[in-house]
């Protein structure tokens, strides 16, 4: 049994750009949220972070793009950018696909339902139904690249990607698959943005966006994206790996009336992950958090970070990444990509700290990612440079 899993490559379709270079550049200078307009009978306008998919026709078959939903297209693009299928080196039958998506193919579901309601169940659109299933991305990745190993989709809010990653790690460590394609993807959609507006989820008057930095700000900006990483057990890795995944853990947190989350329980949760990987809390160089710019939620993230810092006996810098991609369920997949890029490039750009925190001295070798959902679940993932 192997214990170390290496990150061979990563591809993204993201609001920060569709190349790793573009994302690295955006990490230094995060772009502001952009005006979004969703056409419809009553168009919806908001600010947020959308992907530019105009490049897809250069990399993917236009005839197929017409049949796919946005989520599938984003993920196929990210997979191509990650080097699929070339990197699999003739091992497609032994490659598993593990996708995390909180909301699935919202756009395709909405098209099917809107048509069903307005046409009174006449003239249904079967292609949109087929694309509406949550595992449409995973099965399309399997189909397009001939990946015949395990094919798993986790649809569980903000921990979707981490849970999918956990299953990939298990399959790799037990030798059930040789390579794992792990993807975190969610899309923006008219109805989701509209419902978010009605629930006051979105920021409306701010042009800058820096999670963890402003305690009084309320709401967040909607986002979307797909991140695909290719993992393998260490014996199949090589010098080009971006880093290694030491472990991942998902669970439910206990609530607390005053601090929202029971900090002692959350601290134990993180320490259990660390101890299962043989890492001390004091070895964590950076915490990369799923903070989304809503002051109340960010405060919870800061408190959990402070709890681990207290236990470690040393300062652990806290950074955020949703200023690059906006807030969406599977954004932790993009966070994973950001962390891997930091490890691979050997630097943590200042843009991740929002100017308020201290940039770590020296090199960052171990990064702990942490995400929570208001529904009561949380997850953590530990990455280390090679």
């Amino acid at each position, binding site marked *: 049994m192997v214990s170390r899993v290496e990150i061979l490559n990563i591809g993204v379709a993201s609001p920060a750009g569709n190349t790793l270079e573009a994302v690295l550049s955006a990490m230094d200078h995060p772009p502001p949220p952009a005006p979004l307009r969703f056409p419809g009978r009553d168009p919806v306008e908001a600010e947020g972070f959308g992907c530019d998919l105009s490049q897809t026709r250069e990399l993917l078959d236009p005839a197929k793009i017409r049949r796919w939903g946005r989520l599938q297209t984003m993920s196929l693009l990210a997979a191509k950018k990650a080097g699929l299928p070339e990197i699999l080196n003739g091992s497609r039958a032994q490659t598993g696909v593990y996708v995390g998506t909180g909301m699935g193919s919202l756009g395709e579901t909405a098209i099917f339902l809107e048509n069903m309601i307005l046409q009174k169940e006449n003239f*249904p659109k079967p292609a949109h139904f087929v694309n509406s299933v949550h595992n449409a991305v995973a099965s399309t990745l399997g189909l397009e690249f001939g990946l015949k190993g395990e*094919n798993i989709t*986790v649809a*569980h*809010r903000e921990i979707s990607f981490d849970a999918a990653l956990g299953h990939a790690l298990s399959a790799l460590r037990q030798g059930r698959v040789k390579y794992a394609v792990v993807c975190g993807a969610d899309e923006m959609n008219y109805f989701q943005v509209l419902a978010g507006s009605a629930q006051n989820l979105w920021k409306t008057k701010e042009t800058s966006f820096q999670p963890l930095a402003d305690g009084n700000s309320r709401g967040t900006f909607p986002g979307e994206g797909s991140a695909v990483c290719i993992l393998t057990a260490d014996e199949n890795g090589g010098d080009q790996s971006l880093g290694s995944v030491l472990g991942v853990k998902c669970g439910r947190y206990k609530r607390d009336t005053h601090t929202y989350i029971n900090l002692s329980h959350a601290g134990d949760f993180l320490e259990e992950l660390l101890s299962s990987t043989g890492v001390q809390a004091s070895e964590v160089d950076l915490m990369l958090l799923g903070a989304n710019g809503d002051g109340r939620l960010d405060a919870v993230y800061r408190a959990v970070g402070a709890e681990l810092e207290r236990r470690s006996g040393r300062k652990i810098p806290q950074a955020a990444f949703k200023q690059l991609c906006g807030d969406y369920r599977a954004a932790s997949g993009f966070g994973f990509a950001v962390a891997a890029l930091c490890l691979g490039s050997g630097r943590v750009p200042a843009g991740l700290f929002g100017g308020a925190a201290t940039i770590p001295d020296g090199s960052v070798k171990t990064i702990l990612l942490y995400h929570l959902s208001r529904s009561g*679940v949380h997850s953590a993932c530990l990455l280390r440079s090679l």
Partner: protein
Amino acid sequence: MKREVVVTGVGIVSAAGVSSVETWSSLKEGKSGLTPFSLLSSKKYAGVPTGQVSADLAAMSGLERSCRPDQMAVIAARQAVKESFPEADPLVLEKAGVILGACVGGMAQSELFLQRLLLEGVEDTDLLRFHECASAAEAVAENLGLFGPCETISTACSSGSNAIFLAADRIASGEIDMMLAGGIDSFSRLTLNGFGSLLLIDAEGCRPFDEQRKGISLGEGAAVLVLESGETARRRKAPILARLSGWANTCDAYHATAPAPDGDGITRAIRSALGQSGMAPADIDYINAHGTATIENDRAEASAISMVFGGGMPPVSSTKRFFGHTFAAAGAIEAVVCVLALKNSAIPPNAGLNQLDSRCPVRVQRNFESSDISNVMSLSLGFGGNNNCLILTRGEE
């Protein structure tokens, strides 16, 4: 070294019964749970045979303000835990986790949101509270006080069996001692119209493996199994209803909806699960097939079974006619059927079969029959060429 995984409790909510006793009784009597559809307003599908749960789910669950999937999941989970802990309070559950398969979550309410928005201009966002599939697993965890992993698997119609596979994997690897695993789904107009748009609904009710079959009957339900390591189960003297001996998942990589006609992906899943269990095909005494009654599914599945088992094929039955096709719940419901078959030493029948399709080379079990079975196999298939195989072995008296 992998740890042994055992089943110490099961719970089921279905059109054929809202407990394992009721469900087994329906299977024994050959009583189908299909009734004319009336649950949701649908001009097109009213009256079509479906597996609707008629029990008062709100009252049974005590979750009056919740949605049907969450209610069914909590009822099934409570049944399973009650069987697993017949005497003591299940305090050990705090460390346990839950993985459920779910396809559409509270979609029926999301549809109402959309309908009111589109036709009346009303934004009643409260209706979206249960939109996400994750809702049912969280309801179970909250209700039973579980703080281990809490996840939702959504691989279409194989979701429930994949949830069982992934929970078993966690226990076998030593990551956790106990998981509640299963599947859940309820009706929505999305699924009715979706499968209808693909011309996959049989207006006469599903007839798996029959020459005249025309498609599926939709259904709803939930099933939950308490899975735990054999060591901890024996230590606390829990009832060991069955052992989970093998599991596997594969992808056809063939088509978005149709299975590979030669059953290649299913064949690989069966062989992989057999390999993991250390069994030969001859060791399997009964196969509970996915058997949706679509032309393509039954032929592909039969090809795979025939390929692996050949002339020594054990009896095969699809129990979809009893429950309807319950999507994400299907694999979990059928895993519970397998546990009950082992426990009661009997093979449930393939209801709805008149004339076997000559292109489905399987040995179909037509009648309920007592049989001294030791190892059974449950197959599940889903959109996207998703295949799952579970092998269950007789438990301990």
